């Protein structure tokens, strides 16, 4: 029988200060990158036009740019996509209609010597109104997702603290994922949004497994005389093999998507892979640790008040 952990007794909660430090560093890096480099939004959110072109032979970005310069469409972004014969051209919102734009782009590129034959493989046009709507929808989706989870955890475990700690862990993961997105210069697109929402679900999933165990252990003989921190630590240890195994299989799935899923799925899989790692980590060190510190601070405040009452 292969076993990752037989009966693990790691002192996770005891080392939480180190974890807070690590999380603080990661979040500062994430937020710092966001502040300095900002987040590049895909046309899904900004509005604009995207044209995917496949050339007969590998062109240089400069040649494509020279061809496009002729029609003066403003600041266009030209990126290699998948292999060296395929390119994506992004254009900002203009007054021209999408069909007119495509016609002009095709015309300009066909005329440019050295590009050879080309095939327009994909055109996406997102108007300003739709872009704004999608932005709003994205914000709503995240907020409602978090709200739904908060309510569910608070209800299922009769613990508002648990709900808040779970949300804090999720928030921590979001910041790191979005920071990684910005750090690697990837764009915030609809698939990335989908991946972030999946991570919300995944991260909270892990947290729930640990909380479930805590709830189940409550009142058991083995838990008698233990502090809340010790109980939490036990619950995390007891579910550790499952947490790690699941993280491993999900991470493997995401890694394979990243490697073979093609350019379209790349950003999605990237966020998923990072999110799985931070999600697992945050289950142990955020959701678990926060609730412990919170409970302890409440308990010590009650104790102090009791003392004060006794003195008086």
């Amino acid at each position: 029988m292969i076993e990752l952990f037989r009966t693990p007794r790691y002192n996770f909660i005891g080392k939480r200060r180190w974890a807070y430090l690590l999380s603080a560093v990661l979040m500062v890096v994430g937020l710092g990158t966001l502040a300095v480099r900002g987040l590049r939004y895909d046309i899904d959110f900004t509005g604009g036009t995207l044209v995917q072109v496949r050339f007969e032979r590998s062109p240089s970005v400069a040649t494509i740019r020279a061809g496009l310069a002729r029609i003066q469409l403003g600041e266009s972004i030209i990126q290699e996509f998948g292999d060296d014969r395929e390119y994506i051209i992004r254009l900002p919102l203009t007054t021209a209609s999408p069909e007119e734009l495509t016609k002009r782009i095709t015309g300009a590129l066909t005329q440019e010597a050295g590009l050879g034959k080309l095939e327009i493989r994909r055109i996406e046009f997102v108007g300003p109104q739709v872009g704004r709507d999608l932005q709003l929808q994205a914000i709503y989706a995240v907020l409602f997702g978090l709200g739904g989870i908060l309510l569910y955890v608070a209800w299922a475990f009769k613990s508002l603290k648990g709900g808040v700690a779970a949300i804090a862990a999720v928030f921590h993961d979001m910041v790191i994922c979005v920071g990684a997105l910005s750090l690697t210069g990837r764009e915030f697109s609809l698939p990335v949004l989908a991946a972030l929402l999946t991570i919300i679900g995944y991260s909270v999933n892990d947290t729930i497994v640990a909380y479930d165990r805590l709830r189940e252990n409550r009142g058991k003989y083995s838990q008698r005389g233990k502090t809340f921190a010790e109980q939490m630590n036990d619950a995390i240890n007891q579910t550790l093999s499952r947490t790690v195994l699941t993280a491993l299989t999900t991470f493997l799935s995401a890694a394979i998507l990243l490697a073979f899923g093609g350019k379209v799925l790349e950003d999605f899989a990237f966020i998923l892979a990072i999110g799985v790692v931070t999600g697992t980590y945050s289950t142990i060190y955020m959701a678990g640790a926060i609730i412990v510190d919170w409970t302890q601070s409440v308990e010590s405040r009650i104790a102090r008040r009791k003392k004060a009452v006794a003195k008086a």
Partner: protein
Amino acid sequence: MPRRLWQRAGLVVLALALSIWYLYPLRETINLGLDLQGGIHLMLGVEVDKYVGGQTERAAEDLKNGLERKGVAVKRVAREGLSTVAVELASATNWNDALTVAAELASFEVGQRDDKAGRFTLVMRERQVAQLRDDAVRQAVETIRNRVDQFGVAEPTIVRQGDNRILIQLPGVQDPDRAKALIGKTALLEFKLLDERTPVEQALAGRVPETSEVVYQRRVDKETKAERRQPYVVQKRTLLTGAELTRAEVQADPNSPGNWQVAIEFTATGARVFGDVTEQNVARHLAIILDGNLYSAPRINERIPGGRAVITGQFTVEEARDLAIVLRAGALPAPVAILEERTVGPSLGADSIRQGMLAILGSGAVVFVFMLLYYRLSGLIADVALTLNLVILLACMAAFGATLTLPGIAGIALTIGMAVDTNVLIFERIREELRLGKTPRAAIDAGFHRAFRTIIDTHLTVMVTAAILYNFGTGPVKGFAVSLFIGLAASLFTAYFFTRLLFDVLYMGRRKVQAVSI
């Protein structure tokens, strides 16, 4: 096997049989999204306010005619803003008559009034405005559906979204520009008289009589591609529109070889109006205007009784065919604007399918092998459950008519990971119980029992997120949410119920179980 076991096995066989029924034959039952098979996705915005404005304009016209019939002299009747008609009488003496006529416009109510000056406004009722907006979108959907049907697209999606948007998906369309022109054309066909009293030069200089306007005839030279615009002065009044049309057909243009024309035929009412108009205006020119462009302005030689006319304009056969389609399908009640467009060429679609399938097979294979190595016989059980999960997931998508998109494939890949999680939870729990010294049977029982609450909790939270994604997401995100949601629901059945059944069959029937292969 005990009876309960047979019943449970029966349920699984039923689910499997149903799934295969829905999935057979695979090629026809699974709808592929536009990103996988190529095609156009369009989001159109109907400019509903233009429709409301147009209706107000017509009401103003009716009111003016009504007042004139009653002998009430008016200084001005005009539309103001979106839904207000301003009326100014020549004198206040006919005030009561004017109000009686105005009361006949049931969808309007009197707004401001100034009895002494003989001025009042009529405002369209809020309910009527809302109704008109709704009508405009509804009609636009109908018209577009008609056009697309005649154009010949297999399995198009044309649905209304929100207040004034229309989502159109045309899978497999090879010529997106042509399809867009066909869908987006307002196709408002109007017949108006030329204003022969106003010279074109004078009109271009800005001195146009209030009842006339300038329209252009556009001609594109076939060789040089240069566009020529010739101005005409026409009367604003529309004598007849394309609404009274019964037929529109493509014909060769006898006067211009190589070009095509569209022959149209009016309904009985339309033919009568057409006959009257031509009779009253012999020797004048009748302008045929489509979407604000003048196509031709032939001279009326005599009364035309049969209600037939021809639209010429140096069309190619394709242009003429598409024009005939839009004329037959009718005009859009209001112009539409393209808000969002995604076009995927068929070759890109094929590439994404190949890559997506490769990725999903790869992640599936790795998980399969991992489970087998780590949990041995129990791992095999989990693998069988996983296969059943995929079959049920695809069958549900086929049954609901859901579309499989590339993000949808990603959702399936994620489902694989999460379904395995359920089995990992259970197996780890069984191992734990075994470690505590329980007998194999007791350990299996306890493992499944104790993991149940956790499994429900984890599935529900992710399904909640998937449902939220579905509600707030669009196109690609929706596809992801659908496959994730169905996959998780199926995983509750396969990873818990079905796995339990296999364990029971393996270990519960026998009298003495020595060890569990886990």
